[in-house]
Structures are given as structure tokens and as C-alpha cells.
């Protein structure tokens, strides 16, 4: 290598190292040294909203948005033959989220968001608390090394525990019921009570959170579903909104309107 090329390569490597060090040093940390994942995280905009730079609201970063190429691997694309047959008996009218039931995972492949596109993390020395805006979901995830509880019933979002692998938070979720789907929007994605989700959260810098997930369900899947890596951005607000979900009284209003009884 010529001296000028060598010098350029060294300078580029040095600059990259400085940038990486800057990103590393911008990560907020807890007193125990672990990254602090606290913040409101979204894709850069809310559903139907104006992009706030970078991301794109609903549709940001998920599968199936590109043109051409093979169809994205989804949870239901890995169904066993028997599960595929059962899926054919279901349609979007059976989507549990229409009656305010959350998903087991998330429509945009981000469990923090559930059916929406915004979620908040609050971290304490003992717990990482994940709060979902749409449908008001929450998970209190212990990080002190305890295991799963055997005293709680199966639930829509499962029981979660976590541990740190270096700077990566590894979340393990089990004990789901079989009453939810993996995602919403009418995409048939039912699962069994043997659903097991592993997620890895890593704060890349002050404004960026990377999430990886693997879903296993030996009752209905031929193999685990490795979810495409998702990149979340820190939102320019620090509090999610209290927005109710209620489909029952709306149905009454619609029925009343139709019957002209009001």
C-alpha cells in the first residue's frame, strides 16, 4: 500500500473509532453501569403521522414493505400443515385486536408497540418496565436474576424475565394464553400456549434502540421465526398518551344509529 493510501486508511479507521466512541459515550447508564433504556421509542412518526426525521411511522423497518424479491418470512409462513389448515378457517373478522385484545407480539414486529407504533420504557435498578400506548399494555420485567413465576396464569402478553448480556438486555417471555394473535391488522397469526419469545434490546446510542426477537411455537411452527432486526428511535416527547380502547360502546352507538332509537 502506498503511503498516502495507508495514511487515508488509518485516518478513516481513526475517525470511525472516534464516532463509535462518541456513540458509546452518549448512551445513558444506570448507577450499576448497565445501559438505561428509558425513553419513549417509536419509528420516527406515529401511525398516519408526519415523519419526525429518519423513520416512517407505521411501516418503518418491518417486513414486506419493499418491492420485488422474495416474500418476507412471517410467523404464519412457518405454520405446520395442520396449522395452515386451521388458519384458513380464520379471517380478519376474527382478529382479537378488534375487541381491544392486545397481540402476543406486535404488528410492526416490536412488542413494545403491540398494535401501535409508540411505547415507553421505564428502567429501575430492579426492573425494566415496558409500557405500550395503544391498548395500554405493560410488562414489569425483573432483571435481578429471578426466574419465571409459576403462580400466575397464562396471559395475553406472557410472563417476562430478563438478564444482561454485556450491554444487551435479553428478555425471555413464556406462559402465554392462546387467545391472541402475533400481529393485528387482520393478518391471521394465531399461536399456541407454547409460544416462547426471546428479545434482545441494545441501545446503540442516545437516540437509537435496536431490537431482535425470535419466536418459537413448536405446536404450530415448523421452526423458530427469527424476526427482522428493528431499529427504534427516541421520540421527541417523554410520555405516552392515555388513550382508551373500547369497542363495545361504539357498537351500541352504531346499532342505535342504525335503528334510529336515540
Amino acid at each position, binding site marked *: 500500500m502506498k503511503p498516502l493510501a495507508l495514511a487515508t486508511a488509518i485516518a478513516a479507521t481513526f475517525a470511525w473509532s472516534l464516532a463509535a466512541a462518541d456513540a458509546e459515550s452518549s448512551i445513558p447508564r444506570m448507577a450499576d453501569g448497565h445501559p438505561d433504556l428509558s425513553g419513549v421509542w417509536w419509528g420516527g*412518526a*406515529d*401511525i*398516519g*403521522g*408526519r415523519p419526525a426525521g429518519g423513520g416512517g*411511522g*407505521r411501516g418503518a423497518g418491518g417486513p414486506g414493505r419493499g418491492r420485488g424479491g422474495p416474500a418476507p418470512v412471517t410467523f404464519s409462513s412457518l405454520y405446520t400443515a395442520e396449522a395452515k389448515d386451521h388458519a384458513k378457517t380464520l*379471517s*380478519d*373478522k376474527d*382478529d382479537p*385486536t*378488534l375487541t*381491544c385484545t392486545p397481540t402476543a407480539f406486535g404488528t410492526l414486529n416490536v412488542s413494545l408497540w403491540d*398494535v*401501535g*407504533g*409508540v411505547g415507553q420504557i421505564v428502567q429501575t435498578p430492579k426492573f425494566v418496565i415496558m409500557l405500550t*400506548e*395503544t*391498548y395500554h399494555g405493560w410488562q414489569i420485567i425483573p432483571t435481578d436474576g429471578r426466574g419465571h413465576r409459576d403462580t400466575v396464569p397464562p396471559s395475553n402478553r406472557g410472563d417476562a424475565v430478563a438478564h444482561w448480556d454485556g450491554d444487551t438486555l435479553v428478555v425471555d417471555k413464556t406462559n402465554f394464553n392462546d387467545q391472541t394473535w402475533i400481529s*393485528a*391488522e*387482520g393478518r391471521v397469526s394465531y399461536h399456541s400456549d407454547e409460544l416462547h419469545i426471546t428479545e434482545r434490546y441494545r441501545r446503540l446510542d442516545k437516540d437509537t434502540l435496536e431490537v431482535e426477537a425470535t419466536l418459537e411455537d413448536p405446536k404450530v411452527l415448523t421452526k423458530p421465526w427469527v424476526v427482522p432486526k428493528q431499529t427504534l428511535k427516541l421520540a421527541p416527547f417523554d410520555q405516552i*398518551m392515555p*388513550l*382508551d*380502547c*373500547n*369497542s363495545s360502546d*361504539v357498537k351500541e*352507538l*352504531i346499532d*342505535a*344509529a*342504525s335503528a*334510529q332509537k*336515540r
Partner: protein
Amino acid sequence: MKKILFAVLGVAAAAAVPALAHHSFAAAYDMQSPITVHGTIDKVLLRNPHSWFMIDVKNEKGEVEHWAFEAGTPSGMIRNGYTPTIIKQGAEVTIKGFRARDASQKRGMLRELTTADGKVFGLFGPQEDKK
């Protein structure tokens, strides 16, 4: 009773189906059956899974009909500039949308709402920055 202005128009204003017609909109609403109604707002429900605009409309016989139009998720509407008080009860509006597949229902999917002073709202709130 609030002042009722016009009748159901049922205008066949062919319009592009919103790119973000999600959840079971396609199952619940007939995108080949556009409808336009003009009346006064009875109630706005900003809530999940979707928001609703309830509107009183006078039909061709002069009778008041109560219609319900489904809109987007409240968080998206609010972050797009919609506020809970921006359209009050009694406000005169025109709503363009698509009728429910169940024709017995006076129900539709909101595509565009225009206020008396010309403000335009879409499935997810204000539209002025989207043109």
C-alpha cells in the same frame, strides 16, 4: 336538536382508497360505495382501536338520521395535529367516505371531513401538510 343542514348526498365521488386502510376496514367497508353526508357533529370519540365521528344528517324526507364514521387511531390523529376540541358538538361538517358492506347500517369509513370554514381532515387528522 341541532340545526340540520343538508341531506345525504350519496355522491359517487370515486376516490383513491387510503393507502393506510388497515385493520378490517376492507372487510367492513365497501370501497366501491363512496358516500358523502353533510350535517352536524353529535359526538367525536377519540379512542382505540379506531376513532369515530357521529353525525346527524337530514335525509330527503327531512328526517334526522344518525350516522357513524370510523376514522384512524387516536394517537396518530393527535400527533398529526388533531385535538380533542378541534371539532365540537354541533359543528357543521361534510364527510366523504365509504359505506359499510352491511347496507342496513348507517355507518361508513371516513376518508375526508371538511368543516364549514374549509378545514380538511383525513383518516388521520389534518391534511394541510400532506398535499
